[in-house]
């Protein structure tokens, strides 16, 4: 070799990777299609910024109050909040952030120490980490304002707390990644996760029933929490304030041990990645179940539809059943409704406040429609390269929309029926005018949204992977359109309901919604041909977005 590559320092490598991420974002936004995403990004960023700053003020005020009133050990409470945010949120909302696989840098001549530091630094670079650090800084300012003498001890404990959290968050993320590398494991995990989220809704009723008997157990368990890192911070600062430097040193040593322990575990984990860990989707060879493919009977009652529409419906149903994450999300709304109406306290509350089913019923139905309609705004998300079939096959695109919308509407009808039956049984039957008005309003809002959602699916498609939430992100423009459409349609519905109340004509909303529903149906069928032509114009963008 006439020339040799020079070793690149860790700082230089960090700058290079930061530059790479910036170029990726910049190039993404260079496309006209993605530029619209910037609007969504700005809106989301503004909301996140307001939230971050709001919590900063709250934590500043809390820290100032605790210290100035002598309750220094209560600072632990604030650090517990940050700890839970830092460790739980990345798991819960990973779907909202784009992922960057920093292991991609492994192809370059990188020393393990550099790889480890890059991994740690990127643990600080996401929104969760940035927000947590900002909040810790807000606590430090609050403490400093109340008692500057506590600052040195707090700074040490805060630094150890940040180190511990970064290491733990990266370790959990890394293990999750390994666990979720297999498709089946991943789908099982997310099915379990959604079930857990649903079962959290039962926490309220359980606390109502068993809260009193559980309290002594909780009180007995509380002292053990003081050995956890978040508690150690408050404990250490409190000890320093009291001049008990031995206890402070012990707390700091405890924090250092936690940081070191998780730092070492992360080191071991990253070392496996550095060596070239195989995270593959390909399953191990399985025992062959039979020698021939199972025959399909084809007697599924879809023979009345055109073959193309029926084929799309069958495919959509199969996809739904195989997408654990999407299927569980569909189960979520009725599960929440059942949980809500099964709470005796709610029925009692409604009775005591004189709230009739008249008011509660439309609200619940609107909630279910709101949740269930969201996926329709990106209905090609899971097609990936398969979307090309719709353009190479001899069919009109309206057939694809008819098939997809048929499945969507069937799901909504099934879930709404279940919820209506449960509601009437548990809470009571609403009056005929309200019941019929609600049903007509549902038709109006669902069908009205379908036309907009079909247009949005063609205009702002975004590829999503099955059973995966890390790195999954809808087009922000599609999210905004869904939001705007839902607000618009629900605003019209509210105006109609308001008119009924104002005029005193109880049947007016039912009549008005029936007319609106008929108009929405007409608009929907009229839109199908226009959307077929639009799909032809947008096919390049659609294929590009889904095949990438």
């Amino acid at each position, binding site marked *: 070799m006439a020339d040799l590559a020079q070793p690149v320092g860790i700082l230089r490598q960090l700058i290079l990777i930061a530059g790479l991420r910036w170029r990726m974002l910049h190039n993404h936004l260079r496309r006209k299609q993605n530029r619209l995403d910037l609007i969504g990004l700005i809106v989301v960023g503004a909301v996140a910024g307001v939230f971050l700053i709001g919590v900063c003020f709250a934590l500043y005020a809390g820290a100032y109050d605790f210290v100035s009133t002598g309750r220094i050990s209560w600072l632990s409470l604030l650090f517990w909040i940050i700890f839970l945010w830092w460790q739980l949120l990345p798991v819960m909302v990973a779907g909202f952030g784009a992922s960057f696989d920093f292991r991609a840098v492994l192809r370059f001549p990188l020393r393990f120490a550099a790889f480890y530091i890059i991994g740690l630094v990127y643990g600080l670079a996401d929104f969760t980490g940035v927000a947590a650090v900002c909040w810790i800084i807000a606590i430090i300012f609050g403490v400093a304002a109340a008692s500057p003498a506590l600052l040195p001890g707090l700074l040490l404990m805060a630094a150890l707390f940040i180190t511990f959290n970064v290491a733990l968050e990266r370790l959990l993320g890394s293990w999750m990644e390994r666990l979720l590398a297999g498709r089946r494991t991943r789908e099982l995990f997310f099915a379990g996760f959604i079930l857990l989220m649903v079962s959290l809704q039962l926490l309220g009723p359980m606390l109502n029933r068993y809260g009193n008997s559980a309290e002594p157990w909780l009180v007995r368990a509380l002292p053990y929490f003081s050995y956890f890192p978040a508690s150690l911070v408050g404990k250490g600062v409190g000890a320093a304030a009291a001049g008990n430097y031995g206890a402070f040193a012990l707390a700091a040593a405890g924090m250092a041990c936690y940081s070191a322990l998780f730092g070492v575990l992360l080191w071991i984990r990253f070392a496996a990645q550095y060596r070239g860990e195989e995270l593959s*989707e390909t399953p191990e060879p399985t025992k062959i179940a039979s020698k021939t493919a199972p025959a399909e009977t084809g007697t599924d009652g879809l023979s009345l539809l055109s073959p193309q529409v029926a084929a799309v419906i069958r495919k959509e149903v199969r996809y739904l059943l195989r997408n654990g994450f999407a299927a569980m999300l569909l189960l979520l709304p009725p599960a929440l409704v059942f949980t809500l109406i099964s709470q005796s306290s709610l029925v009692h509350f409604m009775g005591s406040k004189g709230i009739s089913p008249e008011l509660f019923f439309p609200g619940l139905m609107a909630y279910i429609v709101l949740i269930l309609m969201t996926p329709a705004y990106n209905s090609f998300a899971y097609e990936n390269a398969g979307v090309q079939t719709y353009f*190479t096959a*001899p069919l009109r695109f309206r057939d694809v929309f008819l098939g997809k919308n048929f499945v969507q509407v069937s799901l909504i009808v099934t879930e709404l029926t279940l919820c209506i039956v449960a509601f009437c049984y548990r809470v009571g039957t609403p009056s005929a005018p309200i019941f019929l008005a609600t049903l007509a309003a549902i038709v109006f809002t669902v069908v009205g949204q379908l036309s907009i959602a079909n247009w949005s699916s063609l205009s702002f498609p975004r590829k999503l992977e099955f059973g995966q939430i890390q790195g999954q992100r809808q087009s922000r423009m599609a999210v905004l359109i869904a939001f705007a459409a839902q607000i618009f349609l629900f605003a019209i519905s509210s105006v109609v309901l308001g008119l009924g109340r104002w005029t005193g004509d109880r049947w007016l909303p039912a009549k008005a919604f029936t007319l609106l529903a008929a108009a929405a149906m007409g608009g929907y069928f009229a839109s199908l041909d226009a959307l077929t032509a639009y799909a032809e114009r947008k096919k390049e963008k659609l294929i590009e977005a889904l095949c990438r």
Partner: protein
Amino acid sequence: MTDLAIATEKLTRRFGALTAVDNIDLRVTAGQFFGFLGPNGAGKSTTIKMLTGLLAPTSGRMQLLGLDFSTQSVEVKRQIGVVPEGMGLFERLTGAEYLNFVGRMYGLDHGTTLQRTRELLEFMQLADRPKSMIADYSHGMKKKLALAAAVIHGPRILFLDEPFEGVDALAAGALKALLARMTARGVTIFLTSHVLEIVERLCSHVGIIHQGRLVAQGSIGELRAGIAGEEGSKTTLEQIFLSIVGRSGAERAEIEELSWLT
């Protein structure tokens, strides 16, 4: 143009300032095994996407089997089969489910779809994993399934974008035999491949695209005669290809300057 399977007139596709396909006039006779060659970025995939309805041309005309694509696209699509770039599979279906889906999308009746699905899965040696989803298939299995889907409706023109990439030798042999049988029955095959040996062995006619322009078109014999003169019979397709689209002497000299590689 009615005896032609594929005919284009000044077919052009621009992406902003870039002209990916520039005024090409393709002529592919029915029953030909046509190889479409070109270096990376020459415009092969863009052309095949336009010919299969995945991409709209900026200008120019396309006729397939005498049908104008711009006015009779559904009828054209009924007559063609496609293995697109990326294969276009629905990965969360099993192989049998996917073939059933495609068969129905092309308007085959239920019984015919089932029968052809069974036969194609057997032929492609995909029948022994009936419950596996396509996502769990190997790359070669996916290629075979994509080809099965492209032929399930008995197309008169078959478009194949790199059909042998990632396919093992045994399967490739079976696929080549299938394609040869199809051309013998009058099916036109339009194939792109970077493996010139395969094209030379399978194709009767070749078109070469370079920087968006169709720079050569004809039977391999005609190209040999046109390029190699007296030594034509000994010239391989690779030599013909390189002589047409190969780098200029100045560019080669630049490459030779990369002395630090040795």
